[in-house]
């Protein structure tokens, strides 16, 4: 039997999370589906909504966003007006009904939407099996890199935060560490199929934005204009002369692009290679948007 708790302090949440098999629940928009399909079966579900992590506040020249701040709040926060890419990404993700509960921490930690991974009929390579069904099946919405898992990273927020040089504060019962958002992610390998570097006892408490870029933008293509995952989502930021670009939807984790050669490392898989054209087009639009 598993249990459910709603700790009212971070310390209590961390103590509960130190127990093996426990898992953080924020808005539940991703975890609910994973539990329904048997892809997650935590022994303790720790709902962190009351743990005091929902504030967005000034922090030096930047802003500190609590991990349980909702996407809806981020999209309209006055404190974030200079982080255009982030606000645009938050406003574009999922749908209004979901953004009202979906949190920043949950968005960064959401699992792949690959339909083979999510399907209950199969256990694919990423789920611990030995076959990537996407590669022998349908993968037109998948990533552009070859490899054991060709899934497409789903978070709109991740690229926007990465180009903003954001860091995440990660806490556990034994301490606190801070790392770049990009370092939250890892490519899965045979021995460890996880896409995140977080330990099972760790929780993201905050996302920290340093001084804003001079300009930034988030451009995306989905199946529809609204309410669909990013097929390609591209964040572009300019700090003085320096351009930074990162994308969702093109690799199994958020992908940092070389602004002078955006397709580098992204040869495409047979059915998904069309995304290369989309990415190149968005990159040229993004470059124009931040240098105008």
């Amino acid at each position, binding site marked *: 039997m598993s249990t*459910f708790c709603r700790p009212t302090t971070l310390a209590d949440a961390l103590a509960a999370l130190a127990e093996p098999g426990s898992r953080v*629940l924020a808005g*539940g928009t991703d975890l609910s589906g994973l539990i*329904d399909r048997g892809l997650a079966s935590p022994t303790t579900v720790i709902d962190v909504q009351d743990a005091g992590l929902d504030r967005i506040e000034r922090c030096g020249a930047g802003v500190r966003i609590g991990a349980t701040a909702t996407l809806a709040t981020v999209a309209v926060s006055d404190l974030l007006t200079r982080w255009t890419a982030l606000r645009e990404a938050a406003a574009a993700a999922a749908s*209004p009904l979901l953004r009202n*509960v979906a949190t920043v921490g949950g968005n960064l930690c959401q699992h792949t939407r690959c339909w083979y991974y999510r399907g209950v009929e199969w256990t694919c390579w990423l789920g611990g099996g030995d076959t990537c069904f996407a590669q022998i099946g349908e993968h037109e919405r998948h990533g552009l890199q070859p490899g054991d898992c060709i899934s497409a990273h789903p978070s709109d927020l991740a690229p926007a935060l990465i180009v903003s040089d954001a860091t995440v504060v990660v806490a556990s019962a034994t301490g606190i560490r801070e790392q770049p958002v990009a370092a939250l992610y890892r490519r899965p390998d045979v021995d460890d199929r996880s896409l995140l570097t977080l330990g099972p006892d760790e929780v993201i408490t905050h996302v920290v934005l340093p001084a804003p870029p001079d300009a930034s933008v988030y451009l995306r293509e989905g199946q529809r204009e609204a*309410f669909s995952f990013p097929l390609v989502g591209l964040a572009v930021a300019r700090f003085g002369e320096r351009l930074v670009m990162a994308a969702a939807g093109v690799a199994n984790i958020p992908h940092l692009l070389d602004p002078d050669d955006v397709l580098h490392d992204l040869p495409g898989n047979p059915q998904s290679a069309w995304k290369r054209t989309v990415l190149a087009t968005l990159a040229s639009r993004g470059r124009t948007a931040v240098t105008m």
Partner: protein
Amino acid sequence: MLVPERGGAVVPVTVVLCVNGERHEFEIDPLERLADVLRDRIGLVGTKVGCGEGACGACAVLLDGRAVASCLLAVGSAAGHRIETIEGLSRDGLTPLQEAFIAADALQCGFCTPGQIVAATGLLRAEPAPTRAAVRQAMSGNICRCGCYPKIEQAILSCSGGDG
């Protein structure tokens, strides 16, 4: 469908919900979804379940005034919040927005309509005179399989005093 019963039972806890101003107390699996509790335990079947995975909006309810998908929301997470369903909105008779849906003929089968009304109510409370663009944006999480979108938009705008 091959979706299994949710794995592993959860220890039931006492959950107190405030739905349409009334208090409801249950001994319940806290991971049970609010939509199912509203429909099966409280009998408020106006809230519909279309997809059960956040992708259609039929299950929209207001949580502290904001429209959310009740099919993904654990009932343990909903405790302590003010929940309003379609039944609560129309307790004193049809609202002007519901009248506007009827006048604009903004439905065919009607399955999506409670969710549409709830989402639009959330919008109009936050923004009493939204533009057409704001209506489209706010309603983008509510799918209508019958394709009544132009009339839904027209109904909402007719209540909004917005100039579109």
